[in-house]
């Protein structure tokens, strides 16, 4: 009976891959185990017999047959091997960057699709007319160009007022934190635009006074609003914004309402 652990040594000895120590160990084992020695000698004879099997020459026509059966792309010998070609080829040859590129591309496509399909569609003329008065336009801010802004950092009031525009609509965002009652006066040229609505995102009770060329918005504490104006056609003038605490004027600024591109 041959111990199992010596099978591998016999294998390796025949293949000539035993270390000196392993060979010596096997030799010692075989010298005291006739059955093992018989097995080793038999397998060695078999391995030696296999050496007598000669290599076979492939048929002479084989190479040409193979070449004939392949379709090699037609390529101009003068074609320059561009850097882009080399990069593409590296991706073709190496799976890791290839998979990484596929993975990243997949994510990009996914994000793009999400952005495209999760956002409401852009507003057509008809749709704009329907919704502009309601100021249900906040999600569509993506479709607006920021025009101007003013940061308010006073002891009583903090926050910002921004203007946006997109074709027929001008928006004023009103986002102020205050411990006192705030009054905002927004003046505009009636020939440029008409007030069309107010949307409250957050805040307490407010009061809105709408005139032909101005609106006055009064609210207590924090307030976040969007005021919308229907444009009579670009270019239109700025919105004159004044912020009061009670009757005290705290801040005054003319905010541009033109799209950034048209300002350049």
């Amino acid at each position, binding site marked *: 009976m041959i111990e199992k652990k010596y099978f*591998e040594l016999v*294998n390796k000895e025949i293949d000539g891959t035993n270390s000196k120590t392993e060979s010596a160990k096997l030799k010692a084992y075989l010298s005291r185990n006739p059955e093992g020695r018989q*097995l080793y000698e038999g397998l060695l004879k078999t391995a030696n017999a296999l050496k007598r099997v000669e290599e076979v020459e492939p048929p002479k026509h*084989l*190479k040409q047959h193979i070449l004939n059966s392949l379709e090699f792309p037609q390529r101009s010998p003068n074609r320059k091997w561009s850097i882009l070609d080399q990069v593409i080829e590296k991706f073709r040859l190496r799976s890791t960057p290839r998979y990484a590129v596929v993975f990243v591309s997949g994510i990009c496509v996914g994000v793009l699709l999400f952005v495209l399909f999760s956002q409401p569609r852009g507003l057509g003329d008809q749709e704009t007319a329907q919704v502009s008065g309601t100021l249900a336009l906040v999600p569509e801010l993506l479709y607006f160009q920021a025009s101007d802004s003013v940061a308010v950092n006073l002891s009583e009031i903090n926050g910002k007022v921004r203007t946006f525009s997109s074709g027929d609509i001008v928006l004023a965002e009103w986002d102020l934190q205050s411990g006192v009652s705030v009054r905002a006066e927004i003046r505009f040229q009636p020939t440029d635009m008409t007030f069309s609505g107010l949307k409250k995102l957050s805040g307490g009770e407010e009061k809105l006074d709408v005139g032909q060329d101005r609106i006055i918005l009064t609210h207590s504490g924090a307030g976040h609003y969007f005021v919308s104006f229907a444009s009579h056609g670009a270019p239109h003038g700025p919105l004159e914004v004044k912020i009061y605490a009670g009757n005290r004027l705290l801040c005054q600024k003319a905010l541009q309402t033109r799209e950034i591109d048209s300002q350049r």
Partner: protein
Amino acid sequence: MKEQDDKELVRKCLRGEKKAFEIILDRYEKPIYNLVVRMVNDREDASDLTQSVFVKAYEKLNTYNTRFKFFSWLYKIAVNTALNFIGHRKNQERLSDDLVSEDTGLEKEFEESERCQKLEDAILALRPNYRIVIVLRHFQDLSYDEMSKILEIPMKTVKSRLFTARQMLKVILTKSGLQG
């Protein structure tokens, strides 16, 4: 060095350089043909299968990963092609089994060629899974590690399969009178 050359040749092939594939053919046509001929024991079939191996390799060249050795990749295609072929030709294999154990008549007259034929028949008498390890180890001189990668089996399995294959071969050769 040769392996680097292989990878360079693959790059050139992917650029459409026919000459590069001709060099690959010069390098591997013979070993692949010998591998296949030992597996299927029919030169005509081996010729067709070798052609099929290189056509497959060329068509899938863009899936070859340069982290691995080119020849391992090519041998894997060859082994699979040969094993698939044998799978479809099982009945003929059985016929060869019978030939191995009974053909003893012309031994003296054609001693050497007969001896070789018997050896080839003995190899053919092995089941394909055992035959392939004998072919890869003894005729292609591949290491256990290389065999493990080509056959996609653990090295431990390669060793045990090789040991069993040799024992089986020894029995067949003893039976046929080639080995005492």
